Each structure stands twice: as C-alpha cells, then as structure tokens.
C-alpha cells in the first residue's frame, strides 16, 4: 500500500526522522488555518501518489495568507497525470543549502534491504544514475544484524556528502531503517533529503510503501487506505475478498490461481483481444465466490464478453458451474460467456452447464480455443485496433506511461488461506 507524503511523514516523526513542521488540509480554510499556526512562508503541496508534482504545479510557496489561499484554491481539485488532488499538506518553508537523496528498498533479488544515499537529490533516481552513477552509494544490510552506525558512515563517506553532516545523515539513515523494519515497509524514499542553511538535516519528502500482508499489525497504517482513491471495481472486489486488477480492455476474465489467470490474460492478448481485468477467484472457489466475481466483472461497463478459465485442483469444476448458474439467475447478464473447465469434476461441471441451458454461454475444451472464441465474441476494444496488429508475445507489456515507477500497489489482504 502506497502512502501519501503526509502519512509517510507521520511514520517518520513516530520514529524520530526529522521532518519540517506541517499540517494536513482538505479544504482552503483548513490550509489557511495551518498557515496561521505554522507561520509564513509555507509550502502547500498536493497529496497524490505520483511523482512530478512540482513540475505539474502541485507544489507552491506562499509568503502570506492571500498567496496561500490562491495556491490552495488552484491545487485542490487539480488533475495531476490523471489523479485528482483532494488533499493538501501545508508545511513550514525550509531554506535549502543542499539536496541529497536517501532510500531503503526491499531488494528481493539479494533478499536483503538495500540502503542508498546520494549527494545529488531533488531529481529522480534514474536521472542521478544517468548524470553520475558514482554519485549513488549503496549497500545491503543483513536483516538479522540491522543497520549499524558503520553502515551510515560508509554510505556518507562514499557518497561524498558535506563533511559536517556525515554524522546527522548517518543518524537519520538509522532512524529511516527503523521505519523500514518496524512499519513493514517495502520502500522508504526521501527525495530530497535536505540540509538547511543552519545545517540541519530533514526529510523534505516521504515516499513509503507498506507491505499489505503486514497491515494486520499496523492498524494506524491500515487506516491510511483511501477507498475514494480506489477504482470502484477494485474496491468492490476487495470488499468481497476477491483478487481483482482493473485493466483497460473489454474481455472480462476469471480464473483460479494467479499464474493461470496471468497466463489467460496473455493468451487472450495473443488471440488479438484486450483483457478488461485480472480476477483470481482463488483456490477452492465456492459457488458464492463465483457469483460475487461475475458481479464484479460485469460492473465494468467496458466488458463485452467474459472468459472463465478454470483448471480445477482444489477448486471443483461443478462448484464453479453451479456458481455460474446461480449468477445467471440472480443477475441481469447480457454479455456472452465462454467457459473452459478442466480438472477436478470437469465432466460434472460441463453437464451442469449443459442442463442449465444458459443463454449466451459457450463451453470450449481448451484454453486456446476458449481465448479465440471470447475474442471473437467481444469484438474490438474501443482503442484496441493498433494493439491487435502488433506482434503477440509481449506486445502489451510496454510500459504504461501513467504508472509511477517503483510504486507497487498493495497486495491482497491475507484472506485466502489455502
């Protein structure tokens, strides 16, 4: 789960990472009250989970109340790369002598936390790497030993930061590591890490991602989840304990097991279609879960056809078939369905579907035949024409320019206990 800047800074404060004094505001009046309390000049910052806020005009300096009002009015409701600004953070302005960069990432390749420090801050990591790869010092920390003062010294000296702040920067990194471990973070990033005119070291920004699987032991962080910012289908699915990811095509997809569903999306794309979603109904899917899943998939107005791809292991194909029959009896289903059932009780499942004589339900024997059929039934997605002409494998893997790099969306809550 990605936190907003002010939420990350709350965690920083809790663990002694120095941050400028600031207040959260969701209206112009609250922003003005914050300005009075903090004293001018202040900086007003859009709270959205995306980089490039400053360039988009979402961060402004205000010297007095009238400037603050003007900026707060402009920023609230502003659209920053597709995200609407609903919240502000008003912070006492800092005077900037140096801007550094610090981060702790969960390095799954090395299976250790990696701590990074650079004397070049205020730009993104890729830019630092481009300009001067040697400017980024990094080291791995043994999770059973933890971050020690010598780690801080190594990073500070290696990165070439100003000699007089080696000690306070090292101390800040130690506290940042405490945030990383104690709060179950997958990422903690401070950019810029600021040295003020008085040579104080403070975290001017905070980017924190919390492990969704660990939220049960962080009730405070769990409250940071903002249902309003979630996609309506994703929210609906989460409330029903389903793993659903909204995509931008028109072929609704349900399968059991994350790997098989990912594979299903791929074969649909290879057949020239555009998946509308990822939905893993999970192992041992019962009929009721299938009804919920159908409702979630069909609540996306873009869906013009639906593919069920089930390989029954623990999941029984007869349960899935019964769920589908129930869903058709309860919901107003107009989109055509293609169903492929294989594995445990598959014959029984197909018999149930045949006897129910559901309108618009095709049963196919293989995954590839099912994919081809659903793409035919779905018709072209509104903006899928160019996509369909590109080579199949990997064609749709191109980067989504809207997505922020390194900002994993929280994983599912631990609902599915095998």
């Amino acid at each position, binding site marked *: 789960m990605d936190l907003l800047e002010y939420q990350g800074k709350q965690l920083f404060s809790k663990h002694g990472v120095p941050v400028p004094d600031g207040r959260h505001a969701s209206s112009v009046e609250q922003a003005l009250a914050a300005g009075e309390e903090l004293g001018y000049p202040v900086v007003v910052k859009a709270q959205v989970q995306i980089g490039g806020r400053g360039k988009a005009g979402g961060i402004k300096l205000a010297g007095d109340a009238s400037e603050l009002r003007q900026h707060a009015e402009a920023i609230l409701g502003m659209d920053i790369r597709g995200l609407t600004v609903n919240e502000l953070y008003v912070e006492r302005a800092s005077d900037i002598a140096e801007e550094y960069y610090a981060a702790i990432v969960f390095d*799954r390749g090395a299976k250790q936390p990696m701590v990074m420090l650079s004397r070049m801050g205020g730009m993104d990591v890729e830019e630092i790497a481009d300009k001067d790869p040697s400017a980024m010092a990094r080291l791995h920390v043994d999770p059973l030993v933890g971050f020690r003062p010598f780690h801080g010294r190594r990073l500070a000296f290696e990165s070439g930061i100003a000699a007089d702040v080696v000690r306070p920067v090292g101390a800040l990194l130690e506290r940042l590591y405490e945030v990383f471990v104690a709060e179950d973070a997958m990422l903690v990033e401070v950019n810029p890490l600021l040295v003020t005119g008085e040579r104080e070291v403070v975290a001017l920004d905070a980017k924190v991602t919390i492990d969704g*699987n*660990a939220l049960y032991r962080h009730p405070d962080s769990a409250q940071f989840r903002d249902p309003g910012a979630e996609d309506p289908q994703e929210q609906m699915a989460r409330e029903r304990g389903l793993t659903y*990811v909204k995509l931008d095509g028109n072929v609704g997809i349900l399968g*059991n097991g994350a790997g*098989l569903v*990912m594979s299903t999306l791929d074969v649909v794309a290879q057949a020239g279609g555009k998946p509308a979603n990822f939905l893993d109904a999970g192992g041992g899917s019962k009929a009721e879960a299938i009804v919920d899943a159908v409702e979630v998939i069909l609540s996306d107005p873009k869906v013009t056809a639906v593919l069920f791809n089930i390989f029954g292991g623990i999941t029984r194909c007869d349960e899935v078939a019964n769920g589908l029959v129930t869903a058709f009896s309860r919901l107003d289903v107009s989109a055509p369905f293609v169903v492929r059932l294989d594995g445990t009780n598959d014959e029984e499942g197909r018999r149930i579907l045949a006897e129910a004589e559901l309108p618009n339900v095709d049963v196919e024997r293989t995954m590839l035949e099912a994919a081809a059929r659903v793409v035919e039934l779905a018709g072209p997605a509104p903006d899928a024409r160019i996509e369909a002409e590109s080579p199949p494998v*990997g064609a749709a893997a191109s980067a989504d320019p809207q997505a922020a790099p390194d900002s994993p969306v929280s994983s599912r809550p631990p609902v599915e*206990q095998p």
Partner: protein
Amino acid sequence: MSILVGPDTKLVVSGLTGREGSFHGLNNRRYGTDLVAGVTPGKGGQDVDGVPVFDTVHDAVAETGADTSMVFVPPRFAADSILEAAEAGVELVVCITEGIPAHDMLRVYTHLKRGSTRLIGPNCPGVLSPGKANVGIIPAHFFSAGGVGLVSRSGTLTYQIGNELAQHGFGNSTIVGIGGDPVVGSSFIDIISLFERDDQTELIVMCGEIGGDEEERTADYIAEHVTKPVIAYIAGFTAPPGKTMGHAGAIVSGSSGTAQAKAEALEAKGVRVGRDPTQVAQLAAESLGAKV
C-alpha cells in the same frame, strides 16, 4: 529417483488439527506419503485419524523421526512454525501458507541460509513426486511418474502445463511449486540444480512469472551448469506496471521484472520459451523426441 520428497519422507504437519491442514495432510497420506505426526500447541496427545499430535515440533521429531515438515498455519504464525521446524532438525520445510509478511520471510530466509534446512515456499502448492509422495496441495491424480522435472512459481498454471505434458505422454520426476512471494526459501536455481543431478529427470520445465529477477539469474545458471534440456514458460506479458497480479511477488516495478525481459534473457541463453502452455508441452515433446 525424483527430488525432495519420496518413499523415505517422514512428514510432520504443523496445523494438522485445522480444517485445511487435516484435509490435505490426510490426502497426502492417502497418496502414500508417510505422515508420522501433527503439531498443534495444546493438543499434544490427541490424534487425527490415527496420526499422533504433539505440542511442539521438537517432540514430534524426537518421537517419530520426522524429517520433513509441512506448514499449514495462518500467516501471522507461519514464520514462527518454519523456524521451529528448522530448529527441531527437519531437513525440509514446505510452507503452503499465503500472506506471510515479507519482512518476516527476510529474517527466516537469512537464518535458514546459515543452517542446513531447506525451505520450499511459502505461498506454494508443495512438492509431488508422482507414485512416491505428495507433500502439499497439488492434485496428484493428474500426474504420473516420468522424466520431466517441473518447477513453478504458480499452482494452477503448473497443473495446466502438467496436464498438457501428460497429453503428450510425459510423466514427472517431481513437481515443485516454489511459491509466488517476493521472498521464497528455494529459487529456480536451487531446484534446477537438484533436477540436473537427479537420474530420473530427463528434461526440466520451468514456469516463471513477472516480478523480480529470478528468471534472469536462472538463465545464466542454466547456461553455465545445466546439461539437461530446459523449456520455460513466463506468465504475465499483459500485466501493467505497478499492479500486484495476485501473487504478492508478481509485480512489474518500473521497467524491471517484465515477462518480455525474462523470456529474452532465457532465450539468449539457449532456453526455449513456449508462448503458451500448449506450446511448452510441444517444445518438450520435440526436445525429448530429438534425444531418442
């Protein structure tokens, strides 16, 4: 021979008295696995369908000689159960539990690497050596004994590919689900190195997915150390960046961890990559056919 589990496996199940633990534990026993004990704190002295239950893994190991543990307890207790099993001296821990916090697994992983206990999972379907032993939740009736070693990050996708292989007449030496979490106890490399040394395994199929750089590292390892043919499959070409695709570990971060990059890394090292599960089975058939 097969790898990891076989006729000599003596299994203890942590969580045997739970609904899922007893269902799958007894299922494994019906398949022929030597299920010698269960562990549930406070229920020592009871039994589950004749299988003795102990309060601690230490007691279970001392009384029954269990050498393999299957962990079936809820996520917040699972890391503890893995460590308990390792300290009690079992050689292999198979953790099925999904949803263990990543930092817990980081500590467990680091600790286990310093000892001799091997961990499979968490968030995995387990290990099946057809005809010999099943430890986990893999539906064994789809698989028969044979020469294909199968290693995968995903459960149902493994069944899909295993089933396609079966239709070409291939059985399996062992099927290993290594799990879909960011930190798992055993990597593709760990398992492939076992298959390479296993005389029953003639061909290796690895089934990867988006996220991390495991598959890329494995490509380098295969080029240097593996003489047996390897066929690969990667799921998640259509996954958008920044979204977790079901498995906690299945996420493309920025430009890293994409299916495209993984497939290219494998192909660059001479590993053939099937574009869908059906083609994986065809490539396996071609490869084994060419060998004869």
